[in-house]
């Protein structure tokens, strides 16, 4: 038992969990106070939200290979379900946040399952277009009041629930009375988001190492072969959508709670596409990749700021002043361009994303490093677990496409 706990991988995980647990109080400490403040807590809360949302997308796109450009629509549905439940109650009863978020997750999961049906016959770019339609259609649906169809007026009055164009403004979340002295509003929100985020991560982690996860990977890699192995294609494809919907719903519900505001514009097309970009950048079909993706989403603005600061440091640039953007002001307007170039470089040279890059770096290097690595059990507990399993190959594949290729190359 003690020996197991002392393994670097497990120890690392425990340290990480402890860090997550105490993070919102760290800024009061002397050393951490220098770079942490309540705003960082907010940002890490955002990270937790993105982690939940992106885990769902990675399950769908990374693991089972179904491209979805409309994931933000599912997130928005989850956010609205939770927001409506919290603001208007259910059948005259107040709905606590945990129930509202769970309901949002289940509703969105069910919706995702149904949306999976049309996806059965579509793949690749066609599926991308079909899912894209969701995010385009959703804002209009949320604002619906009357529909005239075939010359008749129908009163749908979606806007009565969703607040229509105004969106829904919720009460700002506050910590319960009993914990008032212990946690501030910001710290409370952090835990409200981080606890589900950790649970959902563990869930996704287990899921990808289960029968369902392996079936997803099999479908992604070879549909015909998977069907030959007895995998129910329709069921698993729809399950993939349902699971991604579940994650999106929970994430969206927490988003609405955290923000205390949701409007039809909160999750739009650009957000939806950025999510896909983020998981590709972080690493498809990888839980740690999703963590990087969520970090990217949460700290995007700061990353771009840092990048433009670095670019401005290049001395040769001053020669080009007036011809190319050099001032801070210019870079502000070229935010998209500033991060698109590293993005392209990244995708060309590290197609496995950040997670793939780390794996590559880990599996190369000097001999002493390799020896130490094999002794402590690799970068993450994943490889170790995989070795103990009956199907090591499927496990390795589930962790990322990189590994089997690497093995054949060496």
């Amino acid at each position, binding site marked *: *038992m003690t020996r*197991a706990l002392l393994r670097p991988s*497990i120890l690392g995980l425990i340290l990480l969990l402890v860090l997550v647990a105490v993070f919102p109080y760290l800024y009061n400490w002397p050393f951490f106070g220098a770079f942490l*403040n*309540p*705003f*960082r807590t*907010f*940002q890490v809360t*955002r990270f937790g939200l993105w982690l939940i949302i992106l885990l769902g997308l990675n399950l769908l796109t990374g693991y089972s290979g179904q491209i979805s450009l409309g994931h933000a629509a599912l997130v928005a549905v989850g956010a609205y379900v939770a927001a409506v439940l919290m603001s208007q109650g259910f059948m005259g009863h*107040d709905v*606590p*946040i*945990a*129930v509202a978020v769970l309901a949002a997750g289940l509703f969105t999961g069910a919706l995702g399952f149904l949306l999976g049906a049309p996806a059965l016959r579509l793949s690749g770019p066609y599926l991308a277009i079909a899912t894209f339609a969701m995010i385009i259609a959703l*804002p*209009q649906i949320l604002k619906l009041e009357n529909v005239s169809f075939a010359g008749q007026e129908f009163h749908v009055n979606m806007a009565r629930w969703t607040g229509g*164009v*105004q*969106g829904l*403004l919720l*009460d*700002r979340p*506050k*910590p*319960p*009375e*009993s*914990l008032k002295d212990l946690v*501030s*509003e*910001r710290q409370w929100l952090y835990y409200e988001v981080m*606890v*589900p985020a*950790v*649970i959902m991560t*563990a869930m996704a982690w*287990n899921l990808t190492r289960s029968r369902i996860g392996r079936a997803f990977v099999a479908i992604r890699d070879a549909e015909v072969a998977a069907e030959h192995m007895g995998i129910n294609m329709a069921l698993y494809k729809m399950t993939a959508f349902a699971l991604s919907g579940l994650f999106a719903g929970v994430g969206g519900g927490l*988003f609405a709670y955290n*923000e*205390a*505001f949701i*409007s039809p*514009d*909160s*999750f*739009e*097309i*650009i957000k939806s596409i950025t999510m896909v970009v983020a998981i590709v950048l972080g690493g498809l079909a990888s839980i740690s990749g999703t963590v990087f993706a969520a970090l990217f989403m949460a700290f995007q*603005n700061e990353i771009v700021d840092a990048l433009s600061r670095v670019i401005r440091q290049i001395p040769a640039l001053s020669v080009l002043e007036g011809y190319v953007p050099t*001032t801070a*002001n210019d870079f*502000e*307007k*070229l*935010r*998209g361009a500033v991060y698109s170039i590293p993005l392209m470089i990244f995708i060309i040279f590290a197609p496995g994303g950040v997670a793939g890059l780390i794996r590559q770096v880990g599996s190369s290097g000097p001999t002493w490093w390799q020896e130490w690595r094999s002794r402590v059990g690799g970068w993450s*507990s994943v490889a*170790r677990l995989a070795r*103990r399993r009956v199907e090591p190959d499927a496990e390795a594949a589930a962790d990322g496409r990189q590994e089997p290729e690497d093995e054949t190359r060496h």
Partner: protein
Amino acid sequence: MLRRFPRAFLLVATVVVSLLLLSCSGGEKEADKTPAGTQPAGAGTPGAEKVPGVTDTEILLGTHMPISQTPAAAYAPIADGMRAYFEYTNSQGGVYGRKIRFIVGDDHFNPADAVEVVRKLVEQDGIFALVGGLGDAPHAAVYKYLEENGVPDMFVSGGLDKWTEPLVRTRFQGNPNYGTEGKMLAKYLVENYDGKKLGLLIENDEFGENGKKAILEGIEGSDIEVVAEERYETTQWDVTAQTQRLKAANPDVILAYAVPPPAASLVKVAREVLNWDVPIVVTGVVVTDIFIQLAGVQNAEGVVSVVFGKQIYQTDDPGVQRNYQIMKDFGQGVEPSNFTLYGIFIAEMMVKALKNAGPNLTRDSLIEGAESIRDWCCLTCPLPVNMSPTDHRPCEMEVYNRVENGKWVTFGEPVIYESTPGKAVACKGPNEPIYAGEGD
């Protein structure tokens, strides 16, 4: 052990969640005025260094605006205009010896992003006040947060009624509100098209909804009949289909509550594609050069709207000349336009409020300073600006404008809905109010 780890972990997590659930259902209904750890407006003694964002040498201001990654980044020059005016103020020695530092947060016109950048401005950068937060949709996500934390929310660049109704002490509106504007547009319609048929093009969001409500209220009692109403989504810039359906309903006049690109599309399609010379009236938001460029000079001719300020190409006006020069001198190469003109107007009003607040600057004194703006003629104001503790709307007058030869030209008498009676009746030039009985 290893394989059981996640399961044991899940168990612990489940317990934690049920605890959370229990604690939530108990503590949901409490209603506190100020959340713990936040500072009410104007806390601390005057002059003490406790005021966030204010030191003896500096005032830190911030705003949220779409700068990149969205078509709405067309509004970005507004931030450039504001920055230019603050730089200009600093070059004049600042306000009571304090230099203004101005941070722009890029919100991509997305409410969720606006939340992030505004929190960063307030909590990390520690701004003194938010100035000219742009856009009704993004600002809707942050206004409650600013209100609850007592951060002055100065001159919101949006026209929704809800920014000043109900009146919140810390929030001021920058644009004329759509209610005022709608009344003016309705007045024009009633005067010129009574008994005729009206077609509406409405943006499917709060901006369009608010405007439509004001128009319908304004034409109540007249014989104008609304024969068609078409809507478009905020992401849509091409309204060909809507325009065709409007034509099918055959109205005598069209009113568009739209942003410049769709409004331009309406005009262009009507004139060029459908060969339809119906009179078109648009909301004041459309009064920009971009609209004329997109619609084409020929097509835009005769389009009617309302504005609350002068235009950048009124080059013979001394106020506009100064405005133009400030942008040339301090704009870091950004071309002067009606957007930069508007940015300068907002920044100028902010500096005026800061000056009124006096040397002992607190959030409280800033609000009092803004509320005490009376009979003030800004560089580009056609009429004096008045505010009071019960009136947080600086722009309560508008003038009719019409496109003539590719430029917006003023016509008719200004219409005033001023709720704070001032002594001045007009503006001769910058800081030169004309009082009743004087002049002419």
